[in-house]
């Protein structure tokens, strides 16, 4: 059921418009409720980008091969270019914009900065979302665990990603600040 305080596509794009529509798809993104009233088969990636203007999730291939579009659905890493919004009704999604804030970074974002990982930076939102997911599953990942990160980085930042994942694991292990436990 559409909630009274949820935002429709039109409202999200241009606040202060439009009442709710029947057949709208309801989904929670970074803790906020949205109603999608457009094409139900629209992949989440394009909904995030073109409708909500949450542009942190990137297009790299559109067919699930590169990971640039990685988000969390119900806390698990998923490639949003392959997920039609209709399949996500009622689910909770976290994007790079929802994982931590500039003044309250997630440990993985913090580690990414400390290791100076980004080159062009385009793949890095997806890399971070994949790493957050990995660290939830494996608090102290082995080399082989890290090698399971299959996101492509065309700039070749993999060695620094490795270091940053280890640093993030340490930060999370020693953190008294619960920021790292978010998402």
């Amino acid at each position, binding site marked *: 059921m559409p909630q009274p305080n949820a935002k429709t596509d039109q409202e999200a794009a241009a606040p202060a418009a439009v009442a709710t529509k029947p057949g709208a798809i309801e989904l929670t993104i970074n803790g906020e409720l949205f109603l999608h009233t457009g094409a139900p088969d629209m992949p989440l990636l394009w909904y995030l980008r073109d409708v909500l203007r949450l542009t*942190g999730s*990137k297009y790299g291939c559109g067919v699930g091969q590169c990971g640039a579009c990685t988000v969390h659905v119900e806390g698990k890493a998923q490639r949003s270019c392959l997920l039609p919004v209709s399949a996500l009704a009622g689910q909770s999604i976290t994007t790079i914009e929802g994982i931590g*804030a500039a003044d309250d970074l997630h440990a993985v974002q913090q580690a990414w900065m400390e290791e100076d990982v980004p*080159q062009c*930076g385009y*793949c890095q*939102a997806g890399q971070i979302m994949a790493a957050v997911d990995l660290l939830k599953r494996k608090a102290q990942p082995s080399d082989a665990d890290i090698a399971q990160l299959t996101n492509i980085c065309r*700039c070749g*930042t993999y*060695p620094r990603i490795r270091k940053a994942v280890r640093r993030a694991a340490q930060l999370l292990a020693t953190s008294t600040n619960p920021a790292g436990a978010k998402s």
Partner: protein
Amino acid sequence: MSGINRRQFISVMLSAGGALIVGMRAAGAAFKPTVPIDMLGEPLTSLGAFVRIERNNRIVIGARGCEIGQGVMTSLPMLIAEELDADWARVRVEQLPYGYEIGPDGPTNRYGAQGAGGSTSIPDGWKDLRQVGAVARWLLLEAAAQHWQLPQDRLKTESSHVLHPDGTRMPYAELVERAAAILPPAEAVALKTPEQYRVIGKPARTVDALAIVTGKAAFGIDSYMGGALTAVMLRCPYLDGSVDSIDDSDTRKIAGVRDVFALPGPVLGSSLDTNLAAGVVVLADNTWAALKGRAALKVSWKQGPWAEESSAKLEAQATEALKGAGIAVRVEGDLDKARKAAKRTLEAKYQVPFLAHATMEPPHALIKIEPDRALFIGALQSPSGASRVIADLTGLAREKIEIRMTRAGGGFGRRLKNDYVAEAVMIAKKAGAPVKLMWSRDDDLRHDFYRPFGVHQLTATLDKKNQLTGFGHLCAATPVNYRNAGMKDEAAGIGCLEPDDFPAGLLPNLDKRFFALESGMPRGWWRAPLHTFHAFAVQSFIDEIAVETKQDAVALRLALLGEARELDYKGHGGPKFDTGRLAAVLTRCAEAIDWKRKRSDGRGVGIACHFTFGGYAAHAFEVSVDGRDLRIHRAICVIDVGRVVNPLGVDAMMMGGTIDGISTALNLAITVKEGQVVQGSFGDYAVGRMAQMPHEVEVIQIASEKEPAGAGEMGIPSVAPALANAIYAATTVRVRRLPILPELNRLL
């Protein structure tokens, strides 16, 4: 920006020749703001085109380059901050737009060189941007001198403050208004000496990393514009083919699709400064509707003049071509005579495929064209080229075209071409609305300007002491100057065979010749262009010579390089090539990998070195091959790029260059079949992933006082030969054809 522009009442600029240009705007003394400065917006004041100082003494520095991941948004402002004596920790960097304008002496760029190509940003910035910072500092010093009634030379600067002899510290912010009213000095200001550096040579992290890790950094495809339609295009899969017929009935039924029309390709055989391929445009309200609309199109194509082209035929063409005389690129002595006199002659053929750039962010463009002006937003490597393309296609004067470069999701040379800009302009004109053009990954892989395909035939003649007496390098390749304007003026072999590359000038008989192959495949510049395949052929061959003559492969190279001296080098990166600097990186690399130690357990070590665009690099790898599984146990990159501006940035470029080199050498090739590019996704163009990569790249930077070279490209050419040499050491299988893995599997 307009509020800020109004306050740029002085402009401090250096001409290309190094002269200081002063007073392009009304001088400060004559400046009478009609509105008090505080009311013009944020409390800040500008000092020349690159520097603003906010009331809280935070210094804002403009970054003029195209940031494609090579770090110029960090390293170029560092040059200004150094001479300005700014507190780097509190500097904020902002991207500058393209600076074309009409000055008193005609067209000029108020920011100087802005393109990204050939690893030139740092060498260019070294020449002018330090002076920008020094002049801004001079103005602040002069303002303080006036304020305190003291001569300038009694004052010092430190961390964004001017220091009075009694120790009083005055923040720059308190001086900037007065400073902006002072005429800049008529002559260049003296620059710091290296022992005074506080920013240059110190590791600096990416200035906008916070925006990147929080998803806030705006790349080109993150730009939107009210009223803009999204365009995607179905391009003709046949090289230089065209649209025969279109059935768009299903496309037009899709909600959100606004229009469908054909876009012609470039005129056959003409120089190419428009779009690259004919096709059908789908205009829609959003990307998804446009992509769905495209998928629903039914188009039949005319195949065009290259319908028969294939990779196999190109190979045959190369074999045939190499029987001819070719075009002499550099010939010295007499290789034929050397061959007759030789105790031994060795020959080998190496083959390199076409490569796509596969920038992580595919080409795209956002453009709005109005009767009297245009606005472009997107990722570029050549904003001047984009400006020319837009002017050509719209008839607008270039100063009426605003170009905002965004952070680019990679470049690698792809964005030196502005075909996608042209495409967007053509579509926007036809649509009569602003347009955001999106390319999908398969568009990108199938419609690129590929690194040239080539076959390299190498010959070495040896005397009875196994000394090299002659060297032949025949290169049959698809020339890189593909339909360039003015390509007739370009040297034969440009972008394929460099006359002065190693070992030219180091032995008496040299014969380098080029053979141009005919192909419909578009070609262009790919990161460290010809050096990637040049180094593969030459540095693999040197290793083969060492093996065949039972010499040490490092000692053989060092003997060839001889004593340290400078040789002429006419190509980009010259005018000199220093044999001593190449020998030094090679020697250091050999030490680091413990070259002399014999490996057991199936491991092999390979090494290679190369000179690229003013930088000297060596790579060494330790590998093993287990069944079909290649493992890289150690990766070492030694680099000498002269004085290093940002060591953390150079380390990133060498690490990234090495990984790019490995990924490309192991896996990547673009092939052609029946006049069409075969590869269309990361499935068949398998850019390397974490699991294939060494855990670490050990980067060693040689400390140097020489003028800085760039760093974007030097880290890649010696990778492929070092890897192939290591594989030989581990397996005694010689890989002479890239990419390595399919070839290794064929040979094993």
